[in-house]
């Protein structure tokens, strides 16, 4: 057979392969477009998050719904996620989803380290802790289509508003009783923190009078719930009169240790 004939045969074979391939991709894409591509915004919806706390992490959970009506599968599919708070990157990662044909539901669980979530807040002052945590969730669905001849990337952005880390903080009026050599003073401290801070923490306090340290009180504290504890100090009885006459000079300095962060909650008079 002449070379020209072989080339002509190859040409027509290639032409038929390309035509069949393009027509089949066109038909498959048309059906696929009625699913995932028709409403890409809802196809990887980020609304309806559920939360779960486990081992120092907050798990953001949602169901991923993908509908591929085409007969070519979405191959080697992955879901990339980036969660940011303002300019701070909270977490990022990739979840492998495999090949997808037809309707597909998968429960997605994204772990967010609590330290990453609130760490940068804890370096600020207390007023920052009283602001809600606004997160942006960037989801990117990546897949190959029709024997890897097409690469599809579908992105969506969602918002999550978490309650402020510190919901309520108050130092109440003291109770005291006097024995032979000491005055026992007790202050009720109520603190309510967001559910995602659920952990055992340490609180450290200093009782001052006229800039003189009269006592220390440290205690453990349950976060993630409304919690009240009593700060207890024994003050020498010699301060009885001067404290009674200058009670406005009594102050308490409070620090709280949340995970690895030492947070100064302020001076309370």
């Amino acid at each position, binding site marked *: 057979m*002449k*070379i*020209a004939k072989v*080339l*002509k045969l*190859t*040409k027509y074979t*290639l*032409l038929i*392969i*390309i035509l069949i*391939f*393009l027509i089949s991709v066109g038909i498959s894409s048309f059906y696929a477009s009625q699913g995932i*591509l028709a409403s*890409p*915004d809802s196809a990887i919806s980020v609304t309806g998050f559920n939360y779960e706390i486990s081992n120092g992490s907050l798990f953001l959970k949602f169901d991923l719904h993908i509908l591929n009506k085409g007969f070519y599968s979405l191959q080697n599919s992955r879901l990339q996620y980036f969660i940011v708070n303002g300019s701070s990157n909270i977490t990022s990662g990739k979840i492998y989803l495999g090949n997808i044909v037809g309707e597909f539901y998968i429960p997605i669980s994204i772990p967010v380290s609590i330290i990453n979530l609130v760490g940068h807040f804890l370096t600020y002052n207390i007023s920052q802790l009283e602001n809600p945590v606004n997160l942006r969730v960037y989801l990117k669905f990546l897949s190959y289509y029709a024997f*890897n*001849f*097409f*690469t*599809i*990337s*579908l*992105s*969506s*952005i969602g918002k999550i508003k978490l309650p402020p880390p510190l919901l309520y903080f108050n130092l109440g009026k003291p109770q005291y009783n006097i024995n032979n050599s000491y005055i026992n003073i007790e202050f009720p401290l109520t603190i309510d923190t967001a559910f995602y801070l659920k952990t055992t923490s340490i609180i450290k306090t200093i009782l001052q009078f006229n800039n003189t340290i009269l006592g220390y009180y440290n205690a453990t504290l349950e976060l993630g719930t409304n919690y009240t504890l009593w700060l207890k100090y024994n003050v020498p009885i010699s301060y009885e009169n001067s404290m009674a006459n200058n009670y406005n000079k009594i102050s308490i300095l409070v620090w709280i240790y949340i995970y690895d962060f030492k947070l100064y909650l302020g001076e309370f008079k």
Partner: protein
Amino acid sequence: MSNQDAIKSSISQSIKFLIIPTLIYSILSDNIGIFPLGLNGIVVKSSIEPLMILLLGTPVLISHIAFSSFDRNKSKLIAAFVESAFLILYFFYFIQQGSISISSNNFSLSIYYGEIFMLIMALSIVSLFSKIDF
């Protein structure tokens, strides 16, 4: 190949490699803006530039005119190799850049289809060599 065949072949090449791709990408892309298809806040962008199609497609066309004007098989074979080189460059651009993105405020869809041009490139080169009477 007669002069008439050569002219026909050159016109066909210029339609295939210059006019149709330029028109398709001009119509599809909002970033080029001749006939943008973007509707209801949806923006369609193609990474293919019509200027690049013209820059890479013109040498293909010129080499094809040369290929068509030669009568001797040896000259035609050399011209076919030259044209193949330009075709590879031309399609390499599509293989690298062949993507389209559709986006609105809160979603974006990108489709990369460059690989399909490998098949079309193979077809174009085989088709070119099949015109030589070996």
